[in-house]
């Protein structure tokens, strides 16, 4: 095996290696590290983000509920303060004015005026009515409408029904006095039954304080400035709306409120679903009135507040993923870089290059690189040794094949010379000795295996001259080679065995003289040397068996069979070359030597001697 063969094997192994690498490249070490790192980091970030978001949501909900409750408590206190002040106005008028004066007393009007003036920002009017609904006194002084039907108005009915209580009405348009400015007042009436004195006679009357609705509505409007959907409304104990930010929409049927249910709740926080929307309801009861201040926190209010936090968390997560990807890539490059360099150098080696195996990176990678380098060096050494060994063995084999010529032929030739000397045929003996000397000179050829075709044919001529003398010219030989072929390379001693076969198998036993023709030509860049006899020929089976190296000795000849010649040519020039045999029984046989046409130069000879096959491009 030569170096080229070894390279071919490495290339084959390289192909398998590449297939393996393709499999590896789909899940390269860098990708694996990066993906693993990123997936783990992103998962942790996601879990962290979701946990944080969940925690924020809970805290935000709790905070919203608590702030709603605080705000409602404060508003309730404000409302109660306002209502208490209204009660005090009513009580002041009753206990300090009405119960102390006769209804015809001028003092009654004056005292009522003073109280009204002191509180006119929050009250629309104060009025004292008799049991039959007749107006006794009113502030501000105004003309009563023609027939306001006082006794049928709710505030009057309630006051008369439950004389011991103060009654707060729901908001309504005041329908008592004639206001020439065409104004109508939206009021909440505080009414109570009072004992009045007319000309010393106690009677039942009704004291009415009409509170300005706008005082309460402004108080509640202030807390209804949220944009998140949260709102507060006020209703009485039966659920009738007193204030609602969408009061007109409710009255117009554009909006609805679950106030009746809310009025049934005790104070606290409740969950409810109203018109398909889940919401939290915070209820506070306003003292003295039984009114309910209701805070409504729809789910939308929680999500509204969380909207920015959601955005923020998503942006934070994306940024963290970006950074983690970057860190992951850096870490994976740091870890996998030396391994990939090592891998690249191994791949280059497998592809037939001879790079230096990468030794670097971490201690483990360095050790790995060092081990691979050492292994490859050892493999190279071993391969070189194997090639050397193979070359030596091949040369020994060639030498052994060539050495088979000598004993048989020498014995026969010297035997012939002996006979010639004994017969006093000295000239013939001299000729024979000269031919033999020449033959031996070429046979030896200073130990070379490769000689020129000219020398080889000269060797063949010498041989035939000896044989013709021995066989007493029982056959004729003709050399018809193209003179151009003489300066090409050939393995030595390959024509002579063919001639020997032609003599023994071709002409022996023939009645007439045998004819042997030696030809030579170059055709399509190859060299062909043929030996043709007109002997007995062979059958096709015999021809086919001739080149089979089955170890059977041939019964005639020098012992160097066609098989030997065939093997020698193929060993040196490759399996493409060798012998070709054509034969017809009783017609003759042609054996053709097929060789590459390698010009006989010292350089080519040396390369062939070393066993290097010459590519076509290298032949010059």
């Amino acid at each position, binding site marked *: 095996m030569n170096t080229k063969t070894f390279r071919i094997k490495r290339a084959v192994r390289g192909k398998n290696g590449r297939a393996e690498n393709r499999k590896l490249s789909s899940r390269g070490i860098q990708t694996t590290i990066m993906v693993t790192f990123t997936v783990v980091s992103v998962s942790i970030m996601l879990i962290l983000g979701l946990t944080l978001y969940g925690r924020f949501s809970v805290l935000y909900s709790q905070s919203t509920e608590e702030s709603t409750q605080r705000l409602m408590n404060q508003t309730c206190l404000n409302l109660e303060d306002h209502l208490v002040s209204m009660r005090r106005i009513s009580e002041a008028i009753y206990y300090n004015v009405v119960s102390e004066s006769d209804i015809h007393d001028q003092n009654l009007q004056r005292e009522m005026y003073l109280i009204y003036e002191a509180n006119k920002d929050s009250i629309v009017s104060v009025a004292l009515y008799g049991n039959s609904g007749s107006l006794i006194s009113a502030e501000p002084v105004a003309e009563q409408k023609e027939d306001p039907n006082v006794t049928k108005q709710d505030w009057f009915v309630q006051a008369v029904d439950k004389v011991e209580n103060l009654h707060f009405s729901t908001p309504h348009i005041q329908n008592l006095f*004639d206001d020439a400015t065409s104004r109508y007042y939206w009021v909440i009436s505080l009414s109570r039954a009072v004992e009045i004195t007319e000309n010393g006679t106690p009677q039942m009357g009704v004291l009415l304080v009409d509170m300005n609705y706008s005082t309460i509505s402004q108080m509640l409007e202030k807390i209804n400035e949220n944009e998140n959907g949260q709102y507060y409304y006020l209703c009485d104990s039966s659920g009738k709306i007193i204030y609602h930010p969408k009061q007109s929409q409710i009255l117009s049927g554009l909006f609805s409120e679950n106030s009746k249910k809310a009025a049934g709740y005790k104070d606290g926080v409740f969950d409810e679903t109203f018109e398909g929307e889940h919401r939290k309801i915070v209820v506070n009861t306003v003292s003295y009135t039984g009114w309910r201040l209701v805070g409504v926190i729809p789910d939308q209010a929680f999500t509204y507040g969380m909207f920015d936090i959601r955005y923020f968390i998503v942006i934070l997560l994306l940024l963290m993923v*970006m950074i983690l990807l970057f860190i992951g890539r850096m870490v994976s490059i740091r870890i996998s870089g030396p391994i990939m360099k090592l891998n690249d150098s191994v791949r280059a080696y497998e592809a037939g290059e001879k790079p230096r195996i990468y030794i670097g990176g971490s201690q483990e990678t360095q050790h790995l690189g060092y081990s691979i380098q050492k292994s490859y060096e050892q493999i190279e050494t071993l391969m070189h040794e194997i090639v050397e060994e193979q070359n030596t063995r091949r040369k020994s084999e060639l030498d052994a094949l060539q050495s088979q010529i000598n004993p048989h032929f020498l014995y026969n030739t010297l035997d012939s010379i002996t006979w010639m000397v004994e017969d006093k045929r000295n000239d013939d003996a001299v000729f024979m000795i000269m031919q033999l000397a020449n033959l031996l000179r070429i046979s030896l050829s200073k130990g070379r295996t490769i000689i020129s075709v000219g020398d080889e044919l000269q060797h063949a001529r010498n041989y035939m001259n000896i044989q013709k003398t021995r066989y007493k010219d029982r056959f004729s030989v003709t050399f018809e080679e193209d003179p151009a072929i003489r300066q090409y390379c050939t393995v030595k001693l390959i024509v002579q065995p063919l001639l020997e076969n032609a003599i023994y198998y071709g002409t022996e036993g023939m009645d007439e003289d045998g004819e042997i023709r030696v030809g030579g030509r170059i055709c399509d860049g190859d060299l062909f040397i043929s030996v043709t006899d007109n002997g007995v020929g062979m059958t096709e089976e015999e021809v086919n068996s001739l080149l089979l190296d089955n170890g059977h000795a041939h019964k005639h000849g020098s012992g160097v069979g066609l098989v030997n010649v065939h093997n020698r040519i193929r060993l040196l020039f490759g399996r493409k070359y060798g012998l070709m045999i054509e034969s017809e029984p009783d017609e003759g046989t042609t054996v053709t030597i097929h060789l590459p046409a390698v010009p006989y130069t010292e350089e080519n000879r040396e390369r062939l001697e070393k066993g290097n096959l010459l590519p076509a491009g290298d032949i010059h």
Partner: protein
Amino acid sequence: MKENRKAFIILEIVLAAAVLILTAAMLVRDYQKPHRVSVILRNPEESQWAALRFGLKQAAKDRNVALVIAGTGDLASAEDEKEQIQEEIDNGAKALIVEPSPGSGTGAMLEEMSKKIPILLIESKAGDSENLSYPAAAEADNYAMGQAAAKEVLKDFSGRLDGKRIGILSGSQGTEAGVSRKQGCLDILKDSGGTVIWTLESMETAQNAEALIQEKEKADIIIALNDPALEAAGKCNQEGDLKGALLYGIGNSTETVYYLDQDLVRAIIAPDEFMIGYQAVCETAESLDNFFRKPESRTADYRVLRRDTLFAEENQQLLFAISQ
């Protein structure tokens, strides 16, 4: 290696783009201003528009709309109104709610302007809107209100007005709403046996209106078909200048309610101005939220007010709105 690097760079770019988009979206959301919607009304501060203004404001609050109420003179022409609309557009209005000016050419002008910006008419269609499909209008059923006013008269006279002389204060000045109301009223009166002895179309100012009414021939029944007309007639009645005529009409101001309360007006047909205003803003906001949606016409209800039921529970909302 190269493919990994390419994928890494693409991923980083995509993530960076997502961060930028989200940040921009967050900032845009924080600084997003509500749509500005301008309302063009004739004499917007008059008390007849109190409920309308209240409805407009409530809807603007509910729909997060920046509402601007702009006024025109008493007798704006189509040309004046066009200038006013252009001025509002120049001031940044994204949509307009317009009370169409009386007279011809208004419809064509509004249709032309509505190609620039969503426009919804209020209170009335354009005078020549029969041949126009757009702009739409938010209004009460004017024809039905005209009919209702006449029916209230008939109720007080057991369904027959034989021998009664009727004066009609249309005050329409050629608006489509005025024409419809008058037509509705006349359609009911035509078989009632009564005779419409005069009709007063144009009343430029309150003083002018009162003078014009006083000049008219004595009628048994006067029907005022819009709020200024009813208010002017109510005032005349208060001063004893209606010569004993019974007054009916369409009105939506505290003044007309006051005259009803004082028994100077027998019945009022009160359009739900709160609902008209509310629906107008909602409709406009819808068209602003949805680029492909044009404002559509909306019709509000009306109420019949009589003195004895004026302060009844069912009328409290109406009184609440007009007393804002």
